[in-house]
């Protein structure tokens, strides 16, 4: 599983940092940053939920 983000689309809702804090965080501007680009399978459910609930569709996952 590979995680990518589009920071310029991010609206800083912070859903990802709350739902999948091992994989996503917010920088000082409040925009999404990825902590692990290839998280383990045990984190898949949280990542997929974060992707689904992202209001600006800034998160993507492959594989």
């Amino acid at each position, binding site marked *: 599983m590979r995680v990518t983000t589009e920071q310029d689309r991010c*609206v*800083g*809702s*912070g859903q990802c*940092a*709350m*739902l999948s*804090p091992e994989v996503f965080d*917010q920088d*000082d*501007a*409040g*925009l999404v940053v990825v902590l692990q680009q290839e998280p383990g399978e045990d984190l898949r459910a949280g990542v997929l*939920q974060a992707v*689904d*609930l992202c*209001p*600006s*569709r800034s998160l993507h996952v492959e594989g």
Partner: protein
Amino acid sequence: MTQSADATPETGASLPQFPMRRTCPFSEPREYAEMRANDPVSRAALKVNGKPAWLVTRHEHVRQVLGDSRVSSNLKLPGYPHQFHIPEEMLAQVRLMMLNMDAPEHTAQRRMLIPEFTARRIKEMRPRIQEIVDERVDAMLAAGGPVDLVTALALPVPSLVICELLGVPYEDHAQFEQWSAAMMNHDLSPAEYGAAVQALDMYLDKLVTLKEDEPGDDLISRFLEKNRTEQVADHVDVVTMARLMLVGGHETTANMIALGVLALLQHPEQMAALQADPGLLPGAIEELLRVFSISDSGTARVALEDIEVGGVTIRAGEGILALNNAADHDESVFPEPGRLDIHRKEARSHLAFGYGVHQCIGANLARVELETVYGTLLRRIPGLRLAAGQDELRFKDDAMVYGVYELPVTW
């Protein structure tokens, strides 16, 4: 089949009227389910002026509309589906709130505020929010029941929290709570509505001017400071933003607190489960947010281009109401949507905070406030019960944000 507004001649009288009322406080308006099933993107006439608008009722379509950059939130555009009457001359003078701005202005102003609401910042606010809630619960216990939970707890908690965050003196709360409530009331005349907005803006204008000269440790001061270099807003923009945050921080959370307590009192087995395992609380809050979806007013849009939603073509210039309350009762996402179930796995997919670039910036703050209030009540007043029958309660059927006017409780 593709249809459009031009295909069928319509008069206000032949169309369903919007807004539609809830017949039960725990349910969506009855018409929503029928529309979702038979006519998920359909026409209605706005009660306020008889003009037609599109109602979007399925979860998938509401997300699609709110995520589409080809729709605008600008209430000055012809076709924007207004929910209360604003005379043309007043509309021309209205300064747009962030809620009604589009990119790039919206993006610039929102980005100034995002750092104030990150997951980390909200976590840092938790201890102070707990203190505020404990003080109010102490006062309730000292006064003894019965008390009105709305005035004793539901309104003061978010009011104190948003005042501290913004740097607005809480001692003035009686005034701006009155103005805030007036702005949410559909029954007011345009003149009364305008007067409330003007009074609050004059108050905030003085406050912002004060902070321009003597900044404090608060959101408005930090916004002003950053704006010196970013220059995304003028003085009036800052006043307008402060109004949006103050009013937005009051009505919504206060109404959710009171309705949520009512719902838990009406579902004692789910309340007992929460008392036994407070770890269930975050999920329960998502479910309460979903069931009540207290406002269908923040998601009005107007199409900038022709867009297709669910096989229907919405023409450029036509108004759209993406009904989050209808989306949150979509049975294809939330089976048995009318049933409150704090264990519901998919509850977090609700759209009670909206969706897209305008999704409520205070959502995570609201979640912490709700969690703190419900958690504290369950722990400290386990014998809480209604001191009135549900049929005696008055619900905000006509307001922009749904709620209950008073909630008498005792223990």
